[in-house]
């Protein structure tokens, strides 16, 4: 009997070491010590405490959901603020959690205004036993109107200054939580780096209006007949978060560890964030909707994935997909693929026919023999766009197959700069 060596899931993000890379993001699931201890029991490796600061007063209601074709909560937004519990209570509970769970990561999220307040709260958090700090420069509603949260995250100078205070006062790792409500994330990551942060966390929520009560003309979520913009998160934001994480992962001058956040719902999402350079991942919405128990599958799925790929530890996989990101201008324009439909698995729904006709290049057609439901791809016109594969309800039925067209690789940049030959265009219908 051969022993199966289990990959090592231990995460080290900016010097914060946790039994696995799965952290709860700073949000309602990390409101209290009681909750966080239950989460650790369920298997979470770390938790970023619900942001501490001057306790606020919240509105009701607070959340809105985006539902699509019967699936509830593919997107989520909120208009709640930082913690509404007294600082003392939170600190007492932080100490209690750390006493009982010394190996788990407790990261304390902070948001205050003046240098003195930062100094005071950082000291008290460290005294309580925090393993790391996260500076909340991300909240896009309410707090920013008071000059905090994303108001800081959107101003590199301010970000750098406050980060430098924290770096000065802190003896434990400092993460800066970035807001996605900027056009390019890199300058903001660099500001945190200049300020002396040990790492960054991203993304916080995206400015949003989740929907409208169309019968009463009131945006959602409703607070006595009115609403305000909120922060968007959940599965729908994952592509935006992945892009921002990868932008920092690729930026040559940026070299801080990343804690990836945004729409992570399962192990597969987590793997994606790690492959783009995250050394830990944080989860909020999926836990809010389904509970701490989702971590079991995350741990198992990640373990299995690492075993399959032969990764012995997380370090081996962090950032593995980054080198394969490039500029559009460097992509090979002579690489050609066409759609192939597997006639045995095709169920004849012809969703691809409509999609290609109306949404792509009019090259999937119903078979001439009306009794045959499997469509035909006109490969001479297929541009290999993937649309048919995306709409097909049968996994693996439509595949994009490479065509050997005899043209040597040539990117747009090579064409423009070195005059390399491009293959003739397809699907242009001139």
């Amino acid at each position, binding site marked *: 009997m051969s022993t199966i060596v289990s990959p090592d899931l231990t995460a080290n993000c900016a010097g914060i070491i946790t039994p696995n890379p799965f952290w709860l993001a700073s949000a309602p699931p990390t409101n209290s010590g009681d909750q966080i201890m239950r989460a650790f029991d369920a298997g979470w490796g770390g938790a970023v405490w619900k942001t501490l600061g001057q306790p606020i007063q919240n509105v009701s209601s607070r959340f809105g959901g985006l539902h699509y*074709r*019967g*699936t509830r909560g593919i997107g989520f937004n909120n208009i709640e603020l930082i913690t509404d519990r007294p600082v003392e209570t939170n600190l007492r509970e932080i100490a209690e959690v750390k006493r009982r769970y010394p190996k788990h990561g407790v990261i304390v999220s902070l948001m205050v205004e003046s240098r003195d307040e930062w100094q005071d709260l950082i000291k008290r958090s460290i005294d309580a036993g925090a393993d790391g700090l996260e500076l909340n420069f991300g909240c896009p509603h309410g707090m920013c109107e008071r000059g905090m949260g994303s108001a800081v995250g959107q101003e590199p100078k301010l970000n750098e200054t406050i980060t430098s205070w924290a770096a000065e006062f802190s003896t434990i790792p400092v993460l800066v939580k970035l807001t996605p409500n900027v056009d390019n994330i890199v300058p903001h990551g660099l500001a945190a780096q200049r300020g002396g942060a040990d790492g960054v966390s991203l993304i916080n929520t995206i400015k949003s209006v989740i929907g409208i009560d169309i019968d009463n003309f009131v945006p959602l979520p409703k607070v006595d007949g009115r609403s305000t913009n909120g922060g968007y998160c959940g599965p729908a934001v994952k592509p935006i978060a992945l892009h921002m994480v990868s932008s920092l992962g690729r930026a040559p001058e940026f070299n801080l560890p990343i804690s990836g956040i945004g729409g992570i719902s399962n192990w597969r999402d987590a793997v994606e964030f790690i492959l783009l350079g995250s050394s830990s991942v944080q989860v909020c919405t999926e836990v809010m909707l389904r509970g701490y128990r989702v971590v079991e599958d995350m741990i198992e799925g990640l373990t299995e994935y690492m075993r399959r790929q032969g990764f012995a530890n997380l370090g081996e996989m962090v950032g593995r997909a980054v080198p394969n990101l490039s500029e559009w201008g460097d992509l090979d324009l002579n690489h050609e693929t066409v759609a192939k439909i597997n006639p045995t698995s095709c*169920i*004849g*729904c*012809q*969703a691809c*026919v*409509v999609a290609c006709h109306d949404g792509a290049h009019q090259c999937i057609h*119903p078979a001439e023999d009306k009794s045959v*439901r499997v469509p035909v791809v006109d490969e001479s016109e297929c541009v290999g766009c993937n649309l048919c594969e995306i709409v097909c*309800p*049968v996994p693996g039925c439509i595949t994009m197959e490479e065509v050997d067209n005899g043209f040597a690789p040539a990117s747009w940049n090579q064409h423009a700069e070195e005059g390399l030959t491009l293959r003739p265009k397809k699907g242009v219908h001139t």
Partner: protein
Amino acid sequence: MSKLPATRSETVFVDAKPGYSPVQALTEANRCLYCADAPCVQACPTGIDIPEFIRKIATDNLRGSARTIFDANIFGMSCARVCPVEVLCVGKCVYNEMDVPPIQIGKLQRYATDAAFERGDRFFEAGPDSGKKVALLGGGPASLAAAHELRRKGHACTIFEQAELLGGLSTTGVAPYKMKADRALEEVEWVLGIGGVEVRTGVQIGVDISVEELLRDFDAVFVGLGLGADRLLHLPGGDLAGIRGAVDWIAEIKTDKAALGGVRRAVVIGGGNTAIDTVRELRGLGIPEVSLAYRGAEAQMSGYVHEWSWAKVEGVRGVFGAQPLAYIGEGGAVTGVRFARLDAERQPIAGEELTLEADLVLLAIGQGRLGELLGETEGITLERGRLIVDDAGRTGNPKIFAGGDCANGGKEVVNAVDEGKRAAIAIDLAFGQALCGGEAT
């Protein structure tokens, strides 16, 4: 409905396929793949745009969903309940190809149409008066669908129906666990709500009024007379009490309280859908021993396999390869049926007989044909009592059109509706051509 007694036998039945709740409907609607050139649509005789009406349920555009259905099939509400969807739309759902449960199209259609009906939605208006008059013979789904379409085009309609109730077999024949008579009648009223349809019940064509008179008084005649009475077997003992035609008996349980007091054992003879409906209805009414006796083998039954499977689940006994020889009776009432045993070639096996005891014997071996009524009319061709029509419902007589069971030999409500509608379009076209012709000369 005031015309139906509240105590009628059918009221004990509950829906075999209950209606959807809103969540159930949404869940199912969201599964639909919204196929292009969808196989389910091709399988629907009325060609309802099924993916479209389902999408509209999913987006909470319920009124639009119902409009899509009724635009193709004005009897969409009863078809949702009575269509054999397993062999029509649902049978062709592409999910079957993946061994994933197919979309429950009938239930979704019921959901959308019931909602529209409960709200009292109306979708269609009569067209401007054309001055043309059409007589519709028979008040079943074929004639009603034809009349509705003719009214949309502005032609005046008169329906002649021998019975007191409209709806034909949709009212008096359909199994009560699919749809009860009151719903059928409510639907008829809703269809007639388009206005301008004169209804003359209790008028028997050929007795109270002749086809010739109608041809004289109307610009066109649509024949939707359905099939005739149950066929009976002329066997020894045929006069005994307790031997009846199945369709006749079904009409009684649907519209009246049937006397079943002394009945403990019932035998239904036949292997088609009427026979299967009848045995299930007998079981549903509490008859302890119900048998279906059929000449051929079980696999040769013309009734739907899914319906027969249910009958067996419900405790019906099937007797196959059995040919009735004689009824046995006592004191003027039937007590059993004697059968010859048939081999695979349906030849009697010498010396092998079988007797089934029965207090009630129902014959479901087909219905007569009504063609004779029109047999003498110019241009009409009959084939074994069935009126011969083309795809548009035209007979050889330019003023006579036909559809439904009397022309197709006995199919489903949905076919009758489709054929009635197509004939109405052909009538309208004929009127148009006659007008153009008139102007030209």
